[in-house]
C-alpha cells in the first residue's frame, strides 16, 4: 500500500501545514510516512507544494511524479498538477480561488468553495482544513477523520487553541462535502 498526495497552492495558504497534519496522523497510526516540501528562496507569496507519502512499508522515494491524490489551492497549481495526476485519482480543488475547469474524464474531481465556507465559519485560515477534511474522506482506509482531528489539535492546538475548534469544524465540513459529492 502506498498513498501519494500532493498539496499545492500559494505560500501562506496553509498548504505545508495541511500536509504535515496528514503525515503526523498517519505516523500515529503506525504507518511509514514522509512529508517533503518544495522549497524556494521566497518565504511568502510564491507557489508552494508538499508531497506526503503513506505506506505500510519503508518508503523508498519521497517524491511522486504521478500523484494519486491532489489537493489544489490555486490556478497555477491546478494547471501544473492536473496533467500529472494518476489515472483514477482524486483531485480536490478550491473553487473560491480557482477559475480553471476540469479537463480530464479519468479523475474524480471534488470542487469546494473552501475560502468562502471558511469565512462563513469564522476565518479564512480554516480553508486548508476544509480541503484536508475532504481528502480525509478518501483516505479512510489509512486515517479516520478523528485521527486527523487529533493530529491537527496536537500540531496547532498548543499555539492557537482558539483556532482548534474552528479547524475541527472545518475538517468535519470538508469531510461531509466530499462524502456528498462522491456519491
Amino acid at each position, binding site marked *: 500500500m502506498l498513498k501519494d498526495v500532493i498539496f499545492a497552492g500559494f505560500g501562506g495558504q496553509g498548504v505545508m501545514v495541511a500536509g*504535515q497534519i496528514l*503525515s*503526523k496522523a498517519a*505516523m500515529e497510526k503506525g504507518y*511509514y*510516512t*514522509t*512529508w*517533503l*516540501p518544495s*522549497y*524556494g*528562496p521566497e518565504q511568502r507569496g510564491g507557489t508552494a507544494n508538499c508531497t506526503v507519502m503513506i505506506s505500510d512499508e*519503508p518508503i*523508498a*522515494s*519521497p*517524491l511522486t*511524479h504521478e500523484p494519486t491524490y491532489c489537493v489544489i489551492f490555486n490556478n497555477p497549481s491546478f494547471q501544473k498538477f492536473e496533467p500529472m495526476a494518476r489515472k483514477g485519482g482524486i483531485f480536490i480543488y478550491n473553487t473560491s480561488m480557482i477559475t480553471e475547469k476540469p479537463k480530464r474524464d479519468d479523475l474524480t474531481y471534488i470542487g469546494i468553495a473552501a475560502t468562502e465556507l471558511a469565512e462563513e465559519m469564522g476565518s479564512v485560515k480554516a480553508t486548508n482544513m476544509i480541503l484536508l477534511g475532504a481528502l480525509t474522506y478518501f483516505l479512510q482506509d489509512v486515517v479516520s477523520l478523528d485521527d486527523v482531528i487529533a493530529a491537527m489539535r496536537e500540531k496547532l492546538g498548543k499555539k492557537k487553541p482558539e483556532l482548534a475548534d474552528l479547524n475541527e469544524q472545518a475538517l468535519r465540513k470538508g469531510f461531509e462535502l466530499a462524502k456528498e459529492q462522491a456519491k
Partner: protein
Amino acid sequence: MGEKVFMKGNEALGEAAVRSGCRLFFGYPITPASELAEYMAYRLPQVGGVFIQAESEVAASNMIYGAGAAGKYAMTASSSPGISLMQEAISYMAGAEVPAVIINLIRGGPGLGDIQPAQSDYFQAVKGGGHGDYRNLVYAPSTLQEAVDIMPLLFQNAFKYRMLAMMVVDGLVGQMMEAVEFKYDIDPDSIPVPDWALSGKKMHGGTKNVNTSLELDPNKLAAHNFKLFEKYQKVYENERMFEAFELEESDIDVMIVAYGTAARIIKTAVKNLRAKGYKVGLFRPITLWPFPDKELKEYAQKTEHVLTVEMSMGQLIEDVKLSIFDPNKKYHLMPYPGGIVPTPKEVEDKVIEILKGGAK
C-alpha cells in the same frame, strides 16, 4: 528514548548530534542547511551547550578546528558554497589531526548554483577539496533514520582516528519530515578528554601539548604524511560501509550503483523492475571514503551491466570503474546535475533500454 518523533530532517540531524554528546556548534546560515543551526541555537542552551553564529563559514570551520583541538565534540553544518569556504580549515585539521564533524547538505552548483538536492560535491568531499594529501571520513546516509543512526559513529570515529568526519546529504534529507527514532543519548561527561587535547598542561601531566600542521623539515613532513596514510589505510580496512539491495542471485541483469537520495529513490525503481521480472539490484556505498571498492568489485562479478546513477556529471562513476577495474563490463551513467532528482520511472526505462541492447 526510543519513541518515534515526526521531525524535519535538519532538526533531527541536530538532535542526533546533541544525543551523540556534542555540546558545541559553530555555524553560519545557508539554504538548505540553516534549520540545523536554528535547531542547535534553540537546543544547545537547554543542555548546557554553546551555539555560536560565526561571521563566516571560514570562521565557523576554524572554531570547530579550535574546539576539536581542545578535545571536545564540535560540529558545523553548511551547504556547498559554504563548504568551499571551509576547505582551509579542513586541510589544516587533516594536517594537525584534529577531529570534528561537518554536515554538508549538497546543493546544485557550480558557483551560487541553486538550492535543490545535488551530489555534485562528491569529488570535493572524497578526493580532497583543500590542499595537501589527506582523506576525510565521508558518510552518505540515504534516509533520515540512517543519518540519525550513524551520527554517534561520526563523532566516535573522528576522535578514534583524529580526523574529520563529514556527512553528505542534501536538502531533500534536510527539509523532509519523517518519523525518526533516537536509539541513544550519550552523556558528554562520559566522553574522555584525549591526552593530546589542548586543555592546559595540568590536565595532562604538566607536559605541554602543541597542535600544529606546520613541519618545515621535508623529511619530517614526509614521515608525517606516511604516518597519516598508515592511519588512512587502517580506516580503509575497518570502516567501509555499504548496502547490497536485491543482489542475492548469482546472476544479475543490471547492477545499479548509487548513494544518498538517489539510492533511496532507486529502491522504488528496483522494486518495480523486480515486479516485472527483471533481476535488478542496487549497490549503495554508505561510506564514500573509504569507498567500499572490494565489495563493489565482488558484486560486479554477478553482472555484465553496471549503471551508475548520480546527481552529478560523472563523479561517482570514476570510483565505480576504478573499483571494478574490468574493461569487459559495460558501464552506464545517468547523470542528474543542477539539483534535479531522478525519478524511479526514468531509471526503470533506462534499465529496460540497457537490457534491450539500446544503451551504451
